[in-house]
């Protein structure tokens, strides 16, 4: 199944985001071998050069490693993955607060809503936009 891409951001950034998601959600496990550039290109239906660029970004932040002659692997350092998880979480949280603010909620009200939703009292569903 081809991956979905939005129009505004460079495709390589979106490819690397999706690979990070794969690492965080366990599709690609710690220390596991990743598909090759060409395999990724075909899975995602994007240009191999785009995949190459996405992978080198991830390599530069240490999330993946190249082992000579055998390919690319997810890092074995849990701390790197945790860092990426924290980064991603913070980003989602900030974006969520921003969209709530756009709806007219203060941070306190938003937190209150979240608590309500968690305890199952809130009848209103969370907005699911990005």
């Amino acid at each position, binding site marked *: 199944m081809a991956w979905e891409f939005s*129009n505004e951001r460079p*495709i390589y950034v979106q490819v690397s985001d999706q690979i990070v998601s794969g690492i965080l959600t366990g599709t690609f496990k710690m220390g596991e071998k990743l598909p090759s550039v*060409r395999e990724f290109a*075909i899975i995602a239906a994007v*240009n*191999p050069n*785009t995949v190459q660029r996405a992978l080198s970004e991830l390599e530069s932040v240490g999330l993946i490693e190249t082992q000579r002659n055998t390919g690319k692997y997810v890092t074995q350092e849990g701390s790197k993955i945790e860092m990426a998880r924290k980064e991603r979480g913070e980003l989602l949280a900030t974006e969520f607060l921003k969209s709530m603010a756009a709806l007219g909620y203060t941070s306190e009200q938003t937190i209150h809503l979240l608590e309500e939703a968690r305890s199952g009292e809130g009848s209103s569903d969370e907005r699911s936009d990005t």
Partner: protein
Amino acid sequence: MSEAILECKGLSKCFGPNAALHDLSISLPAGKIIGLLGPNGSGKTTLIKLACGLLTPTEGEIRVCGYKPGIESKALVSYLPERTYLPDWMTVLECIEFFQDFYSDFDIDRATSMLQSLQVPANARMKTLSKGTKEKVQLVLVMSRHAKLYLLDEPIGGVDPAARDYILGTILKNYCEDSTVLISTHLIADVEKILDEFMFIQNGQLVSYASTDSLREDLGKSIDQYFREVFRC
């Protein structure tokens, strides 16, 4: 390696009083998938035909891997025309054999496996096939060569979206790092994620030539959006 796969210098082509291409200069590198985009009548097909040697330039020159269009260049170029030219009395299998006779870089295993996954009946005569299926056959033949330059003129125009995905996948799977694929199409949204670079031409002149991701980085736009802006009617 740094040698340009396709190079045009001051290239012009006139049909009578009308200039289809006017003073076009561009150099396309190896290892890229490049979109050749422009409104109707902008000169896309003319450029492709010049590169194949089907037309001769009125002025300027065009070179493929350093060769002027001729015997040497034709061995390096795999061309998908707008319309299929395969004789309609031939069967699909005969077309494959025909190509194998013609081109030393033809990979028959690749062709048969692609036709199988596209579920094209090998023993059917061309004239019994639908328009879309004929296009698939033609594309399979073209992509089964190990060429340096693939010139695809509207490769996905007539086929359904599922086959379109398969065809784009085929292009990704089969092109190699030292060859270049030039795709002319109107279906920009469908092809843009497989493009490294794109060139816009209009009235036979180059409007822009850039990399897909740099467009998104600099302007925050997809090629499709940019195209609609540049060529707004």
